[in-house]
């Protein structure tokens, strides 16, 4: 018997109440949002619950929303997968734009170690309790976090390109 969305939703709401919300089926993936300060408890629950059994962390990454409220300017996205029932879920936790921090899950899933380092490297999200939170793909001397939207991809001093003629605006590039 397949694991139903409503079963996951009911269980989570029964255990964590209002810390989990915004449940929806997005195309082929069931997704919801969580309060960032409870991320560790929720993910541990999803992994260890004998019915839910989301035992595999597929992916972890960050997103930057500079135009949102200050409390929702960063998001950390977890993709979990239950191989027994072949069910995927996506969990999103929003973080504060000035001081993005969230608890590490590297002691729940060993694989999240480098993925969290990558997110730290590119977005500056502080994973509290991470064993070795330092840059991974960029060089250690770098001071900015390059995947943030305000970080320009090209040298701002270039005058040979006029993006207006290529369908680009400030918003879409």
């Amino acid at each position, binding site marked *: 018997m397949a694991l139903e969305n409503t079963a996951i939703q009911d269980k989570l709401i029964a255990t964590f109440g209002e810390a989990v919300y915004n449940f929806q089926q997005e195309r082929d*993936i069931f997704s919801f949002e969580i309060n960032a300060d409870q991320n560790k408890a929720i993910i541990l629950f999803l992994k260890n619950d004998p019915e839910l059994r989301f035992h595999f962390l597929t992916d972890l990454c960050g997103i930057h929303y500079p135009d949102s409220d200050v409390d929702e300017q960063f998001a950390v*996205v977890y*993709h979990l997968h239950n191989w027994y029932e072949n069910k995927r879920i996506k969990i999103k936790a929003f973080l504060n734009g000035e001081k993005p921090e969230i608890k590490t899950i590297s002691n729940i*899933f060993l694989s999240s170690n*480098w993925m969290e380092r*990558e997110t730290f490297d590119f977005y500056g999200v502080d994973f509290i309790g991470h064993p070795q939170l330092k840059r991974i*793909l960029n060089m250690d001397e770098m001071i900015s976090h*390059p995947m943030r939207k305000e970080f320009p991809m090209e040298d701002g001093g270039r005058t040979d390109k006029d993006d207006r003629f290529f*369908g680009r605006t400030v918003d879409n590039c």
Partner: protein
Amino acid sequence: MSELLLPPEHRYAKIIKERLNEDGSELSILNLGPTHPATHGIFQNILLMDGERILEAEPTIGYIHRAFEKIAENRPFYQITPLTDRMNYCSSPINNMGWWMTLEKLLNIEVPKRAQYLRVIIMELARITDHLICNSILGVDTGAYTGFLYVFQFREKVYEIYEEICGARLTTNMGRIGGFERDWSPKAFELLDTFLVEFPVAWKEFENLFERNRIFIDRTVNVGAITAEKAMAYGFTGPNLRAAGVDYDVRVAQPYSSYDDFEFNVPVGKSGDTYDRFCVRNAEVWESISIIRQALAKMPEGNEYHANVPDYYLPPKEDVYNNMESLIYHFKIVMGEVPVPVAEIYHPVEGGNGELGFYLVTDGSRTPYRLHFRRPCFIYYQAYPEMIKGALLSDAIVILSSLNVIAGELDA
């Protein structure tokens, strides 16, 4: 110990100072990489060694980081395929097709059966080349050069097929939203048929050279073994996980591009060591050959090679010059004025070395708002320091090549 190699505050320096062996020998540090012919890519590992034994390893990655995710946020959707080529460049068509399928999922495009089958063929060819390189290079690392030289010519034959299909060889940039940019030529099918006759003979010989080879077995059995639990905790997918005995395969778990139309086995190993990884890849090559044969046999009639989606599919050049509608579509696609839905999509495909995932967030503009590549090697290479702990230096090389870590994918 030289201070040039390690700064005095490094933890290895402290360990060396504190630990003295009974016979008066001391621990040493070896800098493996970043560039060394035996590592097949740019990997640096600082090893703490007791004689020939590795006690600890500290990997450094990112030497060929090219910021693909940032570039992708600044490119229209159809210009992102060249970036995916350069991730796992041993099997670029899988990455290309994975990206197109992500977009098709986003735009709800139904790809015609024939195009799906063609995609299956090209993806399985890519898997064959990927495994072929990995296994034959593993042979080279254990001292057997002949097998590599023998089967490597068949990668060349596969590249000739790619060339016939898309014009490129290594970084293929193949396909379009909804299918392929052109139909496969009769020559391509001809080359494919020849390949299917000649390659299995060579692969059988290659297997015979290695599978019961005393030296090869001594070098690989019980080297770099990992248990199924550990492998799953470290996020292993693909052949490396299956070698540990878990039969997870995206092609079966979440079939895409009509993989459910074909019969194939998912080979699994038992102990998760280097020898099992080698055998799983060998067996998968046979499965891939069988899938290609089935796809050719079941290939629907006709010459449909792309979906009818003029909003997203670039029209042929001669139509652009001679036909008003095509000109308009061409202009709109190139100028990025085609609307895309606001959505979040995750699409996984079974890449050459594991689950390759595309997490795409769109905001309705011509570029992705966020595109994250779930790169299998980046995730499982974390386990490398643990896998080589206690091994000999020469084993570390063998383990690295049996894991099939591709630098381009590792660093994205």
